[in-house]
Protein backbone atom coordinates (compact mmCIF):
# COMPACT_ATOMS: atom_id res chain seq x y z
CA UNK A 1 0.00 0.00 0.00
CA UNK A 2 1.74 3.03 -1.25
CA UNK A 3 -0.72 5.72 -0.20
CA UNK A 4 -2.64 6.13 3.03
CA UNK A 5 -6.39 5.53 3.16
CA UNK A 6 -7.14 9.22 3.38
CA UNK A 7 -5.08 10.05 0.32
CA UNK A 8 -6.63 7.15 -1.54
CA UNK A 9 -10.04 8.32 -0.46
CA UNK A 10 -9.45 11.86 -1.63
CA UNK A 11 -7.66 11.12 -4.84
CA UNK A 12 -9.55 8.13 -6.19
CA UNK A 13 -12.41 6.83 -4.11
CA UNK A 14 -14.52 9.94 -3.56
CA UNK A 15 -14.28 11.23 -7.15
CA UNK A 16 -15.12 7.79 -8.52
CA UNK A 17 -17.97 7.10 -6.11
CA UNK A 18 -19.37 10.60 -6.64
CA UNK A 19 -19.89 9.80 -10.29
CA UNK A 20 -21.41 6.47 -9.35
CA UNK A 21 -23.68 8.21 -6.88
CA UNK A 22 -25.24 10.33 -9.60
CA UNK A 23 -25.87 7.25 -11.72
CA UNK A 24 -27.39 5.53 -8.68
CA UNK A 25 -29.73 8.45 -8.17
CA UNK A 26 -30.57 8.45 -11.88
CA UNK A 27 -31.64 4.81 -11.44
CA UNK A 28 -33.35 5.13 -8.04
CA UNK A 29 -35.54 8.16 -8.67
CA UNK A 30 -37.32 6.94 -11.82
CA UNK A 31 -37.61 3.42 -10.37
CA UNK A 32 -39.18 4.80 -7.22
CA UNK A 33 -41.63 6.92 -9.18
CA UNK A 34 -42.51 3.98 -11.41
CA UNK A 35 -42.90 1.73 -8.37
CA UNK A 36 -45.19 4.13 -6.55
CA UNK A 37 -47.29 4.67 -9.65
CA UNK A 38 -47.66 0.96 -10.38
CA UNK A 39 -48.22 0.24 -6.70
CA UNK A 40 -50.98 2.82 -6.52
CA UNK A 41 -52.78 1.43 -9.55
CA UNK A 42 -52.31 -2.21 -8.58
CA UNK A 43 -53.26 -1.50 -4.97
CA UNK A 44 -56.49 0.26 -5.89
CA UNK A 45 -57.35 -2.41 -8.47
CA UNK A 46 -56.71 -5.20 -5.96
CA UNK A 47 -59.28 -3.68 -3.63
CA UNK A 48 -61.87 -2.12 -5.90
CA UNK A 49 -61.28 -3.74 -9.27
CA UNK A 50 -63.66 -6.18 -10.93
CA UNK A 51 -62.85 -9.84 -10.34
CA UNK A 52 -60.74 -10.64 -13.41
CA UNK A 53 -58.67 -7.46 -12.97
CA UNK A 54 -58.23 -8.29 -9.31
CA UNK A 55 -56.99 -11.76 -10.14
CA UNK A 56 -54.62 -10.41 -12.74
CA UNK A 57 -53.07 -7.91 -10.35
CA UNK A 58 -52.83 -10.56 -7.62
CA UNK A 59 -50.93 -12.77 -10.06
CA UNK A 60 -48.60 -9.90 -10.95
CA UNK A 61 -47.89 -9.20 -7.30
CA UNK A 62 -47.20 -12.79 -6.30
CA UNK A 63 -45.01 -13.35 -9.34
CA UNK A 64 -42.81 -10.34 -8.66
CA UNK A 65 -42.72 -10.81 -4.91
CA UNK A 66 -42.12 -14.53 -5.17
CA UNK A 67 -38.96 -14.45 -7.26
CA UNK A 68 -35.60 -12.84 -6.47
CA UNK A 69 -35.09 -9.37 -7.86
CA UNK A 70 -31.78 -10.42 -9.35
CA UNK A 71 -33.55 -13.03 -11.47
CA UNK A 72 -35.93 -10.33 -12.70
CA UNK A 73 -33.09 -7.95 -13.47
CA UNK A 74 -31.39 -10.73 -15.39
CA UNK A 75 -34.57 -11.41 -17.30
CA UNK A 76 -35.15 -7.83 -18.46
CA UNK A 77 -31.55 -7.32 -19.51
CA UNK A 78 -30.34 -10.69 -20.84
CA UNK A 79 -33.47 -12.65 -21.68
CA UNK A 80 -35.86 -10.05 -23.07
CA UNK A 81 -33.89 -9.58 -26.33
CA UNK A 82 -34.35 -13.31 -27.00
CA UNK A 83 -38.12 -12.98 -27.05
CA UNK A 84 -39.11 -12.04 -30.55
CA UNK A 85 -42.66 -11.45 -31.61
CA UNK A 86 -43.07 -11.39 -35.38
CA UNK A 87 -39.35 -10.95 -35.87
CA UNK A 88 -39.18 -7.97 -33.52
CA UNK A 89 -37.54 -8.07 -30.16
CA UNK A 90 -36.91 -5.47 -27.53
CA UNK A 91 -33.38 -4.76 -26.43
CA UNK A 92 -33.04 -2.58 -23.36
CA UNK A 93 -29.89 -0.77 -22.31
CA UNK A 94 -28.63 -1.54 -18.85
CA UNK A 95 -30.05 1.55 -17.16
CA UNK A 96 -33.58 1.36 -18.63
CA UNK A 97 -33.59 -2.38 -17.92
CA UNK A 98 -32.71 -1.74 -14.26
CA UNK A 99 -35.33 0.96 -13.95
CA UNK A 100 -37.97 -1.33 -15.44
CA UNK A 101 -36.95 -4.24 -13.21
CA UNK A 102 -36.80 -2.15 -10.02
CA UNK A 103 -40.01 -0.29 -10.83
CA UNK A 104 -42.03 -3.42 -11.56
CA UNK A 105 -40.76 -5.26 -8.50
CA UNK A 106 -41.14 -2.25 -6.24
CA UNK A 107 -44.65 -1.68 -7.57
CA UNK A 108 -45.66 -5.17 -6.47
CA UNK A 109 -44.49 -4.44 -2.91
CA UNK A 110 -45.95 -0.93 -2.90
CA UNK A 111 -49.34 -2.28 -3.92
CA UNK A 112 -49.34 -4.36 -0.74
CA UNK A 113 -49.09 -1.24 1.40
CA UNK A 114 -51.62 0.71 -0.64
CA UNK A 115 -54.00 -2.21 -0.45
CA UNK A 116 -53.46 -2.50 3.30
CA UNK A 117 -54.09 1.22 3.70
CA UNK A 118 -57.33 1.04 1.76
CA UNK A 119 -58.52 -2.05 3.60
CA UNK A 120 -57.74 -0.51 6.99
CA UNK A 121 -60.44 2.08 6.50
CA UNK A 122 -63.60 1.08 8.25
CA UNK A 123 -66.70 0.85 6.09
CA UNK A 124 -68.49 3.23 8.41
CA UNK A 125 -66.22 6.05 7.23
CA UNK A 126 -67.57 5.92 3.69
CA UNK A 127 -71.05 5.33 4.98
CA UNK A 128 -70.93 8.43 7.15
CA UNK A 129 -69.62 10.50 4.24
CA UNK A 130 -72.45 9.28 2.00
CA UNK A 131 -74.99 9.91 4.75
CA UNK A 132 -73.89 13.54 4.76
CA UNK A 133 -74.76 13.77 1.08
CA UNK A 134 -71.28 13.36 -0.40
CA UNK A 135 -70.94 11.62 -3.72
CA UNK A 136 -68.81 8.49 -3.83
CA UNK A 137 -66.05 10.49 -5.46
CA UNK A 138 -66.12 13.14 -2.78
CA UNK A 139 -66.10 10.46 -0.10
CA UNK A 140 -63.08 8.77 -1.65
CA UNK A 141 -61.27 12.07 -2.12
CA UNK A 142 -61.81 13.66 1.23
CA UNK A 143 -62.21 10.66 3.52
CA UNK A 144 -60.75 7.45 2.08
CA UNK A 145 -57.58 8.64 0.38
CA UNK A 146 -56.27 10.95 3.12
CA UNK A 147 -56.62 8.13 5.62
CA UNK A 148 -55.31 5.39 3.37
CA UNK A 149 -52.32 7.53 2.43
CA UNK A 150 -51.35 8.02 6.05
CA UNK A 151 -51.73 4.33 6.81
CA UNK A 152 -49.72 3.28 3.76
CA UNK A 153 -46.95 5.84 4.13
CA UNK A 154 -44.67 3.98 6.57
CA UNK A 155 -44.74 0.83 4.43
CA UNK A 156 -44.27 2.70 1.18
CA UNK A 157 -41.38 4.62 2.71
CA UNK A 158 -39.78 1.40 3.86
CA UNK A 159 -40.07 0.08 0.34
CA UNK A 160 -38.25 3.16 -0.96
CA UNK A 161 -35.43 2.42 1.47
CA UNK A 162 -35.26 -1.13 0.14
CA UNK A 163 -35.16 0.24 -3.38
CA UNK A 164 -32.13 2.38 -2.53
CA UNK A 165 -30.31 -0.68 -1.25
CA UNK A 166 -31.35 -2.99 -4.06
CA UNK A 167 -30.35 -0.46 -6.70
CA UNK A 168 -26.90 -1.97 -6.12
CA UNK A 169 -28.06 -4.92 -8.22
CA UNK A 170 -27.82 -2.73 -11.30
CA UNK A 171 -24.07 -3.26 -11.11
CA UNK A 172 -24.64 -6.92 -11.99
CA UNK A 173 -25.88 -5.89 -15.43
CA UNK A 174 -22.96 -3.50 -16.00
CA UNK A 175 -24.48 -0.24 -14.77
CA UNK A 176 -21.69 1.88 -13.32
CA UNK A 177 -23.57 3.15 -10.33
CA UNK A 178 -22.13 3.23 -6.81
CA UNK A 179 -21.50 -0.49 -6.48
CA UNK A 180 -20.37 -0.91 -10.08
CA UNK A 181 -17.86 1.91 -9.76
CA UNK A 182 -16.61 0.55 -6.44
CA UNK A 183 -16.07 -2.89 -7.94
CA UNK A 184 -14.02 -1.39 -10.73
CA UNK A 185 -11.89 0.64 -8.33
CA UNK A 186 -11.39 -2.42 -6.12
CA UNK A 187 -10.27 -4.49 -9.07
CA UNK A 188 -7.76 -1.86 -10.16
CA UNK A 189 -6.33 -1.07 -6.75
CA UNK A 190 -6.74 -4.29 -4.76
CA UNK A 191 -7.79 -2.25 -1.77
CA UNK A 192 -10.98 -4.24 -1.24
CA UNK A 193 -11.67 -3.57 2.44
CA UNK A 194 -11.23 0.17 2.09
CA UNK A 195 -13.23 0.45 -1.10
CA UNK A 196 -16.20 -1.69 -0.06
CA UNK A 197 -16.41 -0.31 3.47
CA UNK A 198 -16.44 3.20 2.07
CA UNK A 199 -19.13 2.08 -0.34
CA UNK A 200 -21.10 0.79 2.65
CA UNK A 201 -20.84 4.22 4.25
CA UNK A 202 -22.28 5.81 1.13
CA UNK A 203 -25.34 3.56 1.30
CA UNK A 204 -25.68 4.11 5.04
CA UNK A 205 -25.75 7.84 4.46
CA UNK A 206 -28.28 7.52 1.64
CA UNK A 207 -30.52 5.20 3.64
CA UNK A 208 -30.30 7.25 6.83
CA UNK A 209 -31.01 10.46 4.96
CA UNK A 210 -34.03 8.94 3.23
CA UNK A 211 -35.33 7.50 6.51
CA UNK A 212 -35.03 10.88 8.15
CA UNK A 213 -36.82 12.65 5.32
CA UNK A 214 -39.62 10.10 5.37
CA UNK A 215 -40.04 10.52 9.10
CA UNK A 216 -40.26 14.26 8.62
CA UNK A 217 -42.98 13.74 6.05
CA UNK A 218 -44.84 11.30 8.29
CA UNK A 219 -44.64 13.61 11.27
CA UNK A 220 -45.87 16.56 9.25
CA UNK A 221 -48.93 14.52 8.23
CA UNK A 222 -49.43 12.97 11.62
CA UNK A 223 -52.72 13.40 13.45
CA UNK A 224 -53.77 11.61 16.66
CA UNK A 225 -54.76 8.08 15.81
CA UNK A 226 -52.41 8.00 12.83
CA UNK A 227 -49.08 8.50 14.59
CA UNK A 228 -45.85 6.98 13.45
CA UNK A 229 -45.00 3.88 15.42
CA UNK A 230 -41.63 4.65 16.90
CA UNK A 231 -39.17 1.90 16.27
Amino acid at each position, binding site marked *: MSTTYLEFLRAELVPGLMEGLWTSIAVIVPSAALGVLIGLFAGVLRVYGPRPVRQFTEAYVSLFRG*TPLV*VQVFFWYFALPYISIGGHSIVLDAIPASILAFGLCSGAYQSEYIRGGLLSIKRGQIRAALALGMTTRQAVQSVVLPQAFRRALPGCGNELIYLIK*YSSLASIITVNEL*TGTATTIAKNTWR*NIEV*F*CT*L*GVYYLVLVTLATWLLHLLEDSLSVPGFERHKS
Partner: protein
Amino acid sequence: MDFSLAYTATREALPYMLGGVIWTVGLICGAMLLGLALGVPLAVLHVYGPWPARRAVSIYVWLFRGIPILVQMYIFYFGLLAWLSTLPLLSGLGLDSPFVAAVLVLGLTSSAYQSQIFRGAIQSLPAGQLKAARAMGMTDAQAIRSIILPQALRLSIPAWSNEYSILLKDSALAFTIGVVEIMARMRAIASTTHEPVSMTFLAGIIFFALTWVGVKALSLLENRVRIAGYTRQGAA
Protein backbone atom coordinates in the same frame (compact mmCIF):
# COMPACT_ATOMS: atom_id res chain seq x y z
CA MET B 1 -38.49 -18.58 -30.12
CA ASP B 2 -38.46 -22.32 -30.77
CA PHE B 3 -40.46 -24.00 -28.07
CA SER B 4 -39.28 -27.55 -28.64
CA LEU B 5 -35.70 -26.36 -28.36
CA ALA B 6 -36.53 -24.48 -25.20
CA TYR B 7 -38.20 -27.57 -23.80
CA THR B 8 -35.22 -29.80 -24.48
CA ALA B 9 -32.85 -27.27 -23.02
CA THR B 10 -34.99 -26.87 -19.93
CA ARG B 11 -35.25 -30.61 -19.41
CA GLU B 12 -31.52 -31.06 -19.72
CA ALA B 13 -30.84 -28.14 -17.41
CA LEU B 14 -33.25 -29.24 -14.73
CA PRO B 15 -31.02 -31.67 -12.78
CA TYR B 16 -28.16 -29.19 -12.76
CA MET B 17 -30.40 -26.36 -11.59
CA LEU B 18 -31.97 -28.52 -8.92
CA GLY B 19 -28.47 -29.27 -7.69
CA GLY B 20 -28.33 -25.60 -6.81
CA VAL B 21 -31.30 -26.01 -4.49
CA ILE B 22 -29.05 -27.76 -1.96
CA TRP B 23 -26.79 -24.73 -1.82
CA THR B 24 -29.71 -22.32 -1.61
CA VAL B 25 -31.34 -24.32 1.16
CA GLY B 26 -27.98 -24.55 2.94
CA LEU B 27 -27.61 -20.79 2.76
CA ILE B 28 -31.09 -20.16 4.11
CA CYS B 29 -30.87 -22.69 6.91
CA GLY B 30 -27.47 -21.41 8.00
CA ALA B 31 -28.62 -17.81 7.82
CA MET B 32 -31.90 -18.37 9.64
CA LEU B 33 -30.21 -20.27 12.46
CA LEU B 34 -27.45 -17.70 12.79
CA GLY B 35 -30.08 -14.97 12.66
CA LEU B 36 -32.09 -16.68 15.37
CA ALA B 37 -29.07 -17.40 17.55
CA LEU B 38 -28.01 -13.76 17.44
CA GLY B 39 -31.42 -12.16 17.05
CA VAL B 40 -32.88 -13.44 20.32
CA PRO B 41 -30.10 -12.17 22.59
CA LEU B 42 -29.99 -8.92 20.64
CA ALA B 43 -33.72 -8.43 21.15
CA VAL B 44 -33.49 -9.20 24.87
CA LEU B 45 -30.62 -6.73 25.21
CA HIS B 46 -32.57 -4.17 23.23
CA VAL B 47 -35.54 -4.41 25.56
CA TYR B 48 -34.07 -5.21 28.96
CA GLY B 49 -30.39 -4.25 28.63
CA PRO B 50 -28.65 -1.21 30.15
CA TRP B 51 -28.57 1.80 27.89
CA PRO B 52 -25.08 1.27 26.38
CA ALA B 53 -26.15 -2.21 25.34
CA ARG B 54 -29.39 -0.89 23.89
CA ARG B 55 -27.46 1.73 22.00
CA ALA B 56 -25.02 -0.86 20.70
CA VAL B 57 -27.85 -3.06 19.45
CA SER B 58 -29.42 -0.07 17.71
CA ILE B 59 -26.17 0.66 15.91
CA TYR B 60 -25.76 -2.98 14.93
CA VAL B 61 -29.28 -3.03 13.49
CA TRP B 62 -28.74 0.27 11.72
CA LEU B 63 -25.52 -0.99 10.12
CA PHE B 64 -26.87 -4.26 8.82
CA ARG B 65 -30.16 -2.81 7.67
CA GLY B 66 -28.49 0.13 5.98
CA ILE B 67 -25.89 -1.63 3.85
CA PRO B 68 -27.10 -3.58 0.79
CA ILE B 69 -26.62 -7.34 0.90
CA LEU B 70 -24.57 -7.21 -2.26
CA VAL B 71 -22.16 -4.68 -0.76
CA GLN B 72 -21.92 -6.74 2.41
CA MET B 73 -21.06 -9.80 0.34
CA TYR B 74 -18.19 -7.86 -1.21
CA ILE B 75 -17.05 -6.45 2.13
CA PHE B 76 -17.01 -9.89 3.76
CA TYR B 77 -15.81 -12.07 0.94
CA PHE B 78 -13.32 -9.84 -0.88
CA GLY B 79 -12.43 -7.79 2.16
CA LEU B 80 -12.70 -8.96 5.75
CA LEU B 81 -12.69 -12.73 5.32
CA ALA B 82 -10.03 -12.68 2.63
CA TRP B 83 -7.83 -10.69 4.98
CA LEU B 84 -8.64 -12.77 8.06
CA SER B 85 -7.81 -16.00 6.30
CA THR B 86 -4.30 -14.72 5.59
CA LEU B 87 -3.61 -14.44 9.30
CA PRO B 88 -1.60 -17.47 10.42
CA LEU B 89 -3.93 -18.16 13.35
CA LEU B 90 -7.05 -18.33 11.19
CA SER B 91 -5.74 -19.87 8.00
CA GLY B 92 -7.13 -23.25 7.09
CA LEU B 93 -10.45 -22.55 8.79
CA GLY B 94 -12.19 -22.15 5.46
CA LEU B 95 -12.96 -18.50 6.09
CA ASP B 96 -12.17 -17.72 2.48
CA SER B 97 -15.03 -19.89 1.24
CA PRO B 98 -17.79 -18.01 -0.55
CA PHE B 99 -20.41 -20.13 1.20
CA VAL B 100 -19.17 -19.08 4.64
CA ALA B 101 -19.15 -15.44 3.60
CA ALA B 102 -22.66 -15.65 2.21
CA VAL B 103 -24.05 -17.40 5.29
CA LEU B 104 -22.38 -14.81 7.51
CA VAL B 105 -23.78 -11.89 5.52
CA LEU B 106 -27.29 -13.29 5.25
CA GLY B 107 -27.26 -14.48 8.87
CA LEU B 108 -25.96 -11.23 10.36
CA THR B 109 -28.44 -9.17 8.34
CA SER B 110 -31.20 -11.53 9.29
CA SER B 111 -30.23 -11.26 12.96
CA ALA B 112 -30.72 -7.51 12.71
CA TYR B 113 -34.20 -7.98 11.25
CA GLN B 114 -35.08 -10.88 13.52
CA SER B 115 -34.06 -8.91 16.60
CA GLN B 116 -36.61 -6.30 15.56
CA ILE B 117 -39.28 -8.97 15.13
CA PHE B 118 -38.59 -10.43 18.58
CA ARG B 119 -38.37 -7.01 20.15
CA GLY B 120 -41.82 -6.17 18.80
CA ALA B 121 -43.16 -9.48 20.10
CA ILE B 122 -41.62 -9.01 23.55
CA GLN B 123 -42.96 -5.49 23.79
CA SER B 124 -46.42 -6.60 22.75
CA LEU B 125 -46.63 -8.90 25.78
CA PRO B 126 -48.56 -7.43 28.69
CA ALA B 127 -46.28 -5.97 31.38
CA GLY B 128 -48.07 -8.15 33.93
CA GLN B 129 -46.29 -11.24 32.61
CA LEU B 130 -42.89 -10.16 33.88
CA LYS B 131 -44.37 -8.83 37.11
CA ALA B 132 -46.17 -12.08 37.80
CA ALA B 133 -42.97 -14.06 37.20
CA ARG B 134 -41.00 -11.81 39.54
CA ALA B 135 -43.76 -12.09 42.11
CA MET B 136 -43.23 -15.85 42.08
CA GLY B 137 -39.59 -15.31 42.99
CA MET B 138 -38.04 -15.81 39.55
CA THR B 139 -34.95 -13.86 38.64
CA ASP B 140 -35.27 -11.65 35.58
CA ALA B 141 -33.15 -14.05 33.56
CA GLN B 142 -35.41 -16.96 34.53
CA ALA B 143 -38.52 -14.95 33.78
CA ILE B 144 -37.26 -13.94 30.36
CA ARG B 145 -36.18 -17.47 29.51
CA SER B 146 -39.20 -19.37 30.71
CA ILE B 147 -42.06 -16.86 30.53
CA ILE B 148 -41.30 -14.11 28.05
CA LEU B 149 -39.39 -15.86 25.26
CA PRO B 150 -41.72 -18.85 24.79
CA GLN B 151 -44.56 -16.40 24.25
CA ALA B 152 -42.58 -13.97 22.12
CA LEU B 153 -41.21 -16.72 19.86
CA ARG B 154 -44.70 -18.04 19.21
CA LEU B 155 -45.90 -14.60 18.27
CA SER B 156 -42.95 -14.19 15.92
CA ILE B 157 -43.65 -17.13 13.66
CA PRO B 158 -45.84 -15.23 11.16
CA ALA B 159 -43.13 -12.59 10.76
CA TRP B 160 -40.61 -15.37 10.34
CA SER B 161 -42.27 -16.68 7.26
CA ASN B 162 -41.80 -13.23 5.79
CA GLU B 163 -38.16 -13.26 6.89
CA TYR B 164 -37.72 -16.64 5.24
CA SER B 165 -38.97 -15.45 1.89
CA ILE B 166 -36.74 -12.37 2.07
CA LEU B 167 -33.72 -14.55 2.88
CA LEU B 168 -34.55 -16.89 0.04
CA LYS B 169 -34.56 -14.06 -2.44
CA ASP B 170 -31.45 -12.44 -1.00
CA SER B 171 -29.62 -15.77 -1.13
CA ALA B 172 -29.69 -15.48 -4.92
CA LEU B 173 -27.08 -12.74 -4.55
CA ALA B 174 -24.55 -15.29 -3.30
CA PHE B 175 -23.80 -16.08 -6.93
CA THR B 176 -21.87 -12.80 -7.14
CA ILE B 177 -19.15 -14.21 -4.88
CA GLY B 178 -19.21 -17.66 -6.45
CA VAL B 179 -21.64 -19.84 -4.47
CA VAL B 180 -23.04 -22.29 -7.02
CA GLU B 181 -26.66 -21.92 -5.97
CA ILE B 182 -29.64 -21.70 -8.32
CA MET B 183 -28.98 -18.25 -9.75
CA ALA B 184 -25.33 -19.03 -10.49
CA ARG B 185 -26.26 -22.20 -12.33
CA MET B 186 -29.03 -20.44 -14.21
CA ARG B 187 -26.58 -17.83 -15.45
CA ALA B 188 -24.05 -20.42 -16.49
CA ILE B 189 -26.56 -22.52 -18.40
CA ALA B 190 -28.27 -19.52 -19.95
CA SER B 191 -25.03 -18.42 -21.55
CA THR B 192 -24.00 -21.87 -22.77
CA THR B 193 -27.42 -22.83 -24.17
CA HIS B 194 -28.46 -19.37 -25.37
CA GLU B 195 -31.83 -20.03 -23.75
CA PRO B 196 -31.93 -17.26 -21.14
CA VAL B 197 -35.71 -16.98 -21.35
CA SER B 198 -36.55 -20.54 -20.41
CA MET B 199 -33.73 -20.60 -17.88
CA THR B 200 -34.94 -17.50 -16.06
CA PHE B 201 -38.42 -18.98 -16.01
CA LEU B 202 -37.08 -22.24 -14.67
CA ALA B 203 -35.13 -20.45 -11.95
CA GLY B 204 -38.18 -18.33 -11.18
CA ILE B 205 -40.34 -21.42 -10.80
CA ILE B 206 -37.82 -23.09 -8.50
CA PHE B 207 -37.61 -20.01 -6.28
CA PHE B 208 -41.36 -19.72 -6.31
CA ALA B 209 -41.72 -23.33 -5.23
CA LEU B 210 -39.16 -22.87 -2.46
CA THR B 211 -41.03 -19.83 -1.17
CA TRP B 212 -44.24 -21.78 -1.12
CA VAL B 213 -42.75 -24.81 0.64
CA GLY B 214 -41.07 -22.68 3.29
CA VAL B 215 -44.13 -20.58 4.02
CA LYS B 216 -46.25 -23.74 4.26
CA ALA B 217 -43.74 -25.37 6.61
CA LEU B 218 -43.73 -22.34 8.88
CA SER B 219 -47.49 -22.19 9.02
CA LEU B 220 -47.49 -25.88 9.97
CA LEU B 221 -45.01 -25.03 12.71
CA GLU B 222 -47.25 -22.21 13.83
CA ASN B 223 -50.18 -24.61 14.11
CA ARG B 224 -48.10 -27.14 16.03
CA VAL B 225 -46.98 -24.75 18.70
CA ARG B 226 -50.28 -22.92 18.83
CA ILE B 227 -52.03 -22.60 22.15
CA ALA B 228 -55.77 -22.24 21.84
CA GLY B 229 -56.83 -18.62 22.03
CA TYR B 230 -53.27 -17.32 22.10
CA THR B 231 -52.76 -14.66 19.49
CA ARG B 232 -51.14 -11.30 19.40
CA GLN B 233 -53.39 -8.66 20.87
CA GLY B 234 -54.25 -5.68 18.74
CA ALA B 235 -52.15 -4.58 15.82
CA ALA B 236 -48.57 -4.57 16.92
